Structures are given as structure tokens and as C-alpha cells.
């Protein structure tokens, strides 16, 4: 049975839908990420579960019991806010103890539990500090243990790493995941950072304009995005528009307006002659200078080389006005192909998927990707 369940939840503010008929089931102990651009409604989802807003329609269940009519303080749901929301007039100890004292636990039990939790996040010795005497990373950890100390049924995290700088953010991701595993709590994490979502979560829900557009494991969402928005928001993609000229068990053949013949994996609902968009990820594209056999093969010239440290990104002009972006891991020092090199670009049909059938309007991405 699913542990947290949203059943056709809609939240409307006047004419604007922050959530539109969303159904979602999250398993016990799962680390679930909601990803979407700013304003997509992902924070509203958290607030619906926490009880700070009530759904216009639909129901919310935790552990089989309906909770959308309960006030927040009866829901037993922990939350970490983006700004941490630490109580500024209380010490670290009092912040963490707050949830326990409200429950009237005895003093000894409270003290012991606080020690345990502060050990978990390596904040022993900071008990008497005020929140404003802590660094950003320390504040983040206090907010986390304050939410965890009461052993809530669900932990909600609202972009908890958004205020940290990049290096610290990466470090806190590792810590957060580790703590979640140790505690084993069902967690719902909201972020606009797709890489963070992929690396942390068991499952990812992609949300756009209040609609849940795709749901699946990080691999499913990244490797098989079901539409153009997801293919573009979760990672980068190269897009090719064309007409289906062959369709069979081995896959789909698409011919572009410039005459290139591309092969991709099939999916249901396609028919011969249909206009579709194929996508392939930059890291699935291989660059060579020699002659190679492959399902998909384009020739072109390297026009831009971007060194990224652990990898190098190439923009290849494929001659007919189109460009392809290819990413190569720097197994040795980077930049094997300088700008101007004639290269052969290949990728397998398994890496190539249809993201849009009969699209009304596919925005032309800059440099073949965005």
C-alpha cells in the first residue's frame, strides 16, 4: 500500500491552477523528488501535504487515513523550509526540542533524543548558539534535525539546499541522503535542480504548470522522457524533427527535411507519415574521425568546444543548418577535437526516442539544445 497518497488533488487560486488533478502515490521509506521550473506549483504540493493550504478538490491520505481536513499540527509531518525558518529567539537546543516539548515528553528523554540527533548531524557543542550565529550549512542541519526529532511520518523538504553555494550544496546532498537512509523516513523533496533530483531520489515527479507530466525512477525519467518539456528540462537533449518513413519492431525511421535518415526506438501510437520529434542526449552521441558503423550517423564540423573539467562539450555543425551537441568524459585531459575538426557523429537507435508526435510548435532550441 502506498503511504502518502494524493487523489485527484486540485488547488486553484482564482483563475490560476497551482495543482491540477494530481494523483500520486508514494511508498513508505521512499525518497521522492518533485522537480519543476519556478512557479510550476511544486511548493504548493508540499503545502497541501503539510496542511498550510487546503485542496480546492481531491483528497490527501497518509498511511491510509485521510488528512486533508486536519490542521497542520495534527498531521505529524516534518518540514524543512528553504529559508530554514529557525526560531530566531531560541537556541539550537530549544529549536530542536520544540517539537518534543510540545508533546510534553519528559526532560530526560528530550535531552537524550536531542543529543542523538545533534550527533547525527555533527552539531554537538552548538546547543547554546542562536541561529544567527551559525553558518548556512549549520542552519540547514538544525532545520533538518528539528523536523526529524519528533519522528514524523513524512519529511517534506522545500528546496532546502537552495540558499547554499554550489560546493556546500553538493556536500549537503550527500549528507541529506545518508541521514534519510539512516532514519528511513518517507521523504518528499522539492527542487528546481534536475541533477539534484536525479542523484537523490528513488522516484522523480516532473511538474509543469500545476500538472504532473511524468513520474518514474530517475533512469526512466532521464532515459525515456515522454514529452518535449521533460526531455528539455531534465538534462539536455538534441532534437530532430522529421517524418516517419518506416515503422517496425526494430524501431522507427525518421527522415528529416534535409534528407538525413535517423533511427530511433519505437513507441506505441506512432504511424507512418507522421511528423515527429526525435531526441538524443549529448552524452549518448559519440564523436570519431574514422569511419564507423552505427544506426545514426551524421558528418559535421566542430564549431564550439567547451571544457567542463570532468567532461568536454562539443557543438557540431551538421551541414544543413542543424547542430548537434555531444558530451565526452575527459578520461584523459580534455578536448580531443579542437574547433574546425571534421568529425563523424554517431548514436545508437536505443538512445534515440520520440518525444513529440505532431507537435503544435516545437521551439527551435539554440545550438540544437538548451
Amino acid at each position, binding site marked *: 500500500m502506498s503511504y502518502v497518497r494524493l487523489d485527484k488533488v486540485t488547488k486553484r487560486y482564482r483563475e490560476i491552477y497551482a495543482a491540477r488533478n494530481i494523483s500520486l502515490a508514494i511508498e513508505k521509506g521512499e525518497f521522492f523528488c518533485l522537480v519543476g521550473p519556478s512557479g510550476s506549483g511544486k511548493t504548493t504540493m508540499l503545502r497541501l501535504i503539510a496542511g498550510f493550504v487546503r485542496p480546492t478538490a481531491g483528497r490527501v491520505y497518509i498511511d491510509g487515513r485521510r488528512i486533508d481536513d486536519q490542521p497542520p*499540527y495534527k498531521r505529524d509531518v516534518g518540514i524543512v523550509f528553504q529559508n530554514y525558518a529557525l526560531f530566531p529567539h531560541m537556541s539550537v537546543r530549544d529549536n530542536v526540542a520544540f517539537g518534543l516539548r510540545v508533546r510534553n515528553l519528559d526532560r530526560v528523554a528530550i535531552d537524550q533524543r536531542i543529543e542523538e540527533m545533534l550527533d547525527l548531524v555533527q552539531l554537538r557543542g552548538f546547543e547554546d548558539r542562536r541561529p544567527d550565529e551559525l553558518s548556512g550549512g549549520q542552519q540547514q542541519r538544525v532545520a533538518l534535525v*528539528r523536523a526529524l526529532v519528533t519522528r514524523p511520518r513524512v519529511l517534506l523538504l522545500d528546496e532546502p539546499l537552495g540558499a547554499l553555494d554550489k560546493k556546500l550544496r553538493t556536500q549537503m546532498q550527500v549528507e541529506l541522503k545518508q541521514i534519510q537512509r539512516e532514519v528511513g523516513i518517507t521523504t518528499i523533496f522539492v527542487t528546481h535542480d534536475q541533477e539534484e533530483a536525479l542523484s537523490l531520489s528513488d522516484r522523480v515527479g516532473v511538474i509543469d504548470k500545476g500538472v504532473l507530466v511524468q513520474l518514474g525512477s530517475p533512469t526512466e525519467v532521464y532515459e525515456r522522457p515522454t514529452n518535449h518539456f521533460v526531455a528539455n528540462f531534465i538534462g539536455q537533449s538534441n532534437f530532430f524533427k522529421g517524418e516517419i518513413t518506416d515503422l517496425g519492431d526494430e524501431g522507427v525511421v525518421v527522415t528529416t527535411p534535409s534528407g538525413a535518415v535517423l533511427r530511433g526506438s519505437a513507441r506505441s501510437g506512432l504511424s507512418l507519415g507522421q511528423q515527429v520529434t526525435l531526441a538524443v542526449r549529448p552524452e549518448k552521441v559519440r564523436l570519431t574521425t574514422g569511419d564507423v558503423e552505427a544506426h545514426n550517423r551524421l558528418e559535421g564540423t566542430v564549431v564550439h568546444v567547451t571544457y567542463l573539467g570532468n567532461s568536454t562539450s562539443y557543438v557540431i555543425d551538421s551541414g544543413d543548418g542543424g547542430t548537434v551537441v555531444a558530451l565526452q568524459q575527459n578520461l584523459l585531459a580534455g578536448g580531443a577535437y579542437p574547433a574546425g575538426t571534421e568529425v563523424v557523429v554517431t548514436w545508437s537507435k536505443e538512445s534515440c526516442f520520440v518525444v513529440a508526435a505532431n507537435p503544435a510548435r516545437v521551439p527551435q532550441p539554440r545550438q540544437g539544445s538548451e
Partner: protein
Amino acid sequence: MKNRIGPLLTYIYLLAFLVFLYAPVLAMMAMSFNRSPLYALPIQLDLRWFRALMNNKRLIQATGNSIVLALANMATATVIGTSASLALARYQFKAKKVLSVLLVPPIAIPWLILAVSMLLFFQLLGLGRSLSSMYVAHVAVSLPYAILVITARLAGSDSSLEEAAMSLGANPVITFLRITFPLMLPGVLAAALFSFTVSFDNFAISYFLAPPGVSTLPVEIYSAIRKGFTPEINAIATITFAVSMIMVLMADRLVRFD
């Protein structure tokens, strides 16, 4: 970038302004300690004018009235002001914008005009001049100050703190007692101090609305000056000034810090 003359000029200039503003008050305070009733210099330290105050039953009576009135007003304005500010900050209702705009101008209605209109109003209502009229009018005058000060404090607070407390299991009462109220407390204290001062210093309203035989400190000072300027007035003005200053500085500190 900038030369050193700018700050220096500014410094001298602000200093001059402050000297000009404080000098009369300091002169007055100095004279209240001077033995000579004719302001003869050099100053001979003497507390005779303060001693004279002690024996002025009328003045002590008036001061007592002022303090009682100021305390009653402070309690009322602070409680009403706190709840009104909370309501304005927390609830969204349609008329809210109109209400919050209407709250500002009473501060700027000249007290004399307000006193005139209150006198007329209480007469129309048949209440006339009375202690309760005075009390009600003082509350009306202080309340906008109290609301403004508390609202300013609340604007700096963050509703996610209350949400955090509720998610930790605190019901609305506990959330208010442990989070909301402690955080707004400095604003509430400042509002109390301001309300006290506004009432204690008020002349026009007290003068017009006081029933026969009842007087307040500002009214007494005013009458005394009309009768003839004696150093006794300096003494009582010095005390009033010192009390007002201490209260306002405390209030200012509470609003700015912590």
C-alpha cells in the same frame, strides 16, 4: 573617492542642528537647578524649585491624574493595538487595504482639531466633559501609534516560523504563546511606551474634555505659564522631559534591536 571635507561639513552641520535643538531644553534644565528666579548666572545649584513642586498640591494632583490616565490608556491601546495588528497581518479580507489606509491619517489630524471635534461629539452624545470622555479620546489618539509600531515589527516576521511550529505539533494557542508573541513582544512594549507618552504629554484633549476641577500636568504647566513664568515650571518641565526621553529611548531601542 570622496574627499574628507564632505563628512566633516556634515558632521559640524548636524552637530549644530542638534545643539540648536537640545540647547533650549538643556538651558531649561540648567535653570531648573539654578537658585536665582531671575536666571542670574553663574548657576548656583539648588533644588528649591523641585522642593517647591513637592508642596504644590495642585500640581501633584494633576500629575497623579496624568499618570493614571496615561496608564489606563497604555493598557487599553496596547491590548487593542496588538490584536488589531495581528488581525491586519494574518487575515486577508477585502476591506483590509481600506482599513490600513484609514489607520494612518489619524496620526496627522491636528490634536487641536481632534479635541475640538471630540468635545462637540461628546456634547452631541450627551456625555459632555468627563473622565471617561478623556480616557476614550486618549485611546483614540494613541491607538494608531500603537498599531503602526506593532505592525512595523510584525512586517519583519515570517509566517513560515508559525508554519514550522505547527508542523512540529504546536496548536494555534501554543504557536501564539511560544513563537508569535515572543517575536512581537519588543513591538508591543514599544507601543506601550509610545501610548503612555502620547497620553501623558497631551494638552489639547485633556484641556477641552476635562470636567471642572480635574486637571492634568500639561494643562497645569500651560496655566502656570499664562499666570507668569516661574522657575517651578522649569523644574516640572525638566521632570516631564526626562521621563518622556527615557520612555522614548527605551521604545526606540526595543523596536530597533533584539
